[in-house]
């Protein structure tokens, strides 16, 4: 209950995870938007000041349109994100994960007026902290969530490709004689493959430090050798072992887990 992902069920029977954005990220996006508008007002104001009272009137109308329509237009036409949100990798979605539409966007942005009370988003902040999806009052009424946009991940198999050199340092005979401990549970296997996938992001020392948490799998090895051993194990788990047997399993038999 402490973590932020929100799970939505799709008609296809799979569950999707949305990563809910917290208060700080959203405040940052809001400040960027406010600055953008502020700069725009200064430019517009200076330009229209030349037209005296006529310009003053136009300025006020523009001010009105920008202040109220800016978030709505961007959210509806720019994949649920104002420039500030985009800069912070955020976007607004309906509760069911679909892109936000006019009605929800108008609702959440008009109700900003209440969220802003008594000053500086006081009610909005309290509301955000009282529900697990960090929704301000406008989001609650409109049925929207602010989430992190999933970024394009790095090319696949990075785990197996980038560490190839490291693994190849193992002596061939050790590679052949390597047997996977029979007692590894699924989530333990998963932890080891995750280790391999993330290996590229760590320094050698950090990787060795993490590997040292599993002395029972390392058969006395330490440092780089221990890391290499875990990577080898990961390769075994992800597919180097018994390919012939595995490929007999048909992918058309799907077991959907509730």
């Amino acid at each position: 209950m402490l973590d932020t992902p929100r799970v939505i069920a799709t008609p296809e029977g799979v569950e999707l995870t949305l990563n809910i954005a917290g208060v700080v990220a959203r405040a940052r996006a809001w400040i960027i938007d406010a600055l953008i508008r502020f700069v725009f007002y200064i430019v517009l104001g200076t330009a229209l000041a030349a037209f005296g009272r006529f310009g003053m009137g136009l300025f006020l109308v523009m001010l009105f349109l920008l202040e109220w329509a800016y978030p709505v237009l961007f959210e509806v036409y720019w994949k649920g994100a104002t420039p500030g949100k985009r800069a912070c990798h955020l976007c607004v979605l309906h509760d069911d994960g679909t892109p936000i539409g006019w009605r929800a966007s108008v609702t959440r942005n008009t109700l900003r007026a209440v969220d802003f009370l008594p000053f500086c988003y006081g009610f909005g902040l309290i509301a955000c902290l009282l529900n697990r999806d960090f929704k301000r009052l406008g989001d609650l009424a409109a049925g929207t969530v602010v989430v992190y946009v999933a970024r394009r991940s790095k090319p696949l198999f990075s785990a197996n490709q980038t560490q190839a050199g490291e693994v190849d340092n193992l002596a061939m005979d050790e590679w052949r004689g390597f047997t996977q401990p029979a007692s590894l549970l699924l989530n333990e296997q998963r932890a080891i493959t995750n280790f391999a996938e993330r290996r590229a992001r760590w320094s050698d020392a950090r990787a060795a430090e993490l590997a040292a948490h599993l002395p029972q799998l390392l058969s006395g090895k330490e440092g780089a050798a221990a890391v290499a051993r875990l990577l080898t194990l990961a390769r075994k788990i992800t597919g180097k072992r018994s390919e012939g047997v595995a490929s007999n399993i048909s992918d058309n038999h799907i077991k959907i887990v509730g």
Partner: protein
Amino acid sequence: MQQELFEKRYQDQWSEFDQWLSIDAGANATTVKPGFPTSELPQRYRQLARHLALARDRQYGSELIARLERLVLAGHQLLYGASHNRGGGVLFFIRQTYPQLVRTHWRSVLVASLCLFGPLIVLASAIQFVPDIAYIFLSANDLANAQQMYDPANRKLGAGRDASSDVQMWGMYVWNNVRIGFQCFAGGLLFGVGAIFFMIFNGVNIGVVAGHLTQLGYSETFWGFVAGHSALELGGIVLCGAAGLQLGYALIAPGRKTRLESLKASTPDAVGILYGAATMIFIAAFIEGFWSASRLPPVELKYAVGILLWFLMLTYFVFAGRTYRQKNKGASNAS
């Protein structure tokens, strides 16, 4: 099946789907050819969802699952988020949907009207008999300002002694009045209390100024000024308040839903009412800036236009959009 084999086997399908998504996003739409026709999208998406389910079930690596999740989510948004034009555009909304919507929620419209017009009429009348009441609600300074604005000696009305450009006043009315409307709406979220407060607050303000000026004998300038835009402006504010009351009522009396569900269910109608109300106030600002402030037309004409607009507005909300239902009735009678 091992992860590596799984990836090898379906890698091309995933890349094609990914490429299709990036084309849809508008990235060099003309140069890149999609890997499969649009008609195949649902099928491809379902296949992808199946792969994600398999990958999860078999505890494949996080990065693979994250990548599949991203693709499935994008597909989900494309398939189920496709915007569909329900109701058939702006004209249909004006002719049918909007008056129907307002009539459906006549109770909140009535309550909002009472909150605004109740104090307005009571105070404006009372001040005719006891002028000093005005000073209870507004400071002497405010009243003097109002007095100055509607002094019959002015060339322009409602804008202080130095006649200013109509456009400036128009801008000010747009900025100010629509914001008041939105406040009335948003205040509804505070269990309706905010909406009621803003409605009564505005009713008191308008009532006191109206009563005070009438009692001073400025009726021709004041009533002549407000007549033209009063229908759309007050009507718009009442409807904003009514939309706010819908939210408040949904929170106070959620019925068999949770309060949150009840609030969510009430927003489509409330926002529908708000769309029209904001438009009305916006139009009223035009009339206020360019017609009401002018002293050219005789005051009788201004009264006539004001009454005509009230009449048209009420007729619209009472009678517009009923034909559709009657047609249905006729059909059911015939059968």
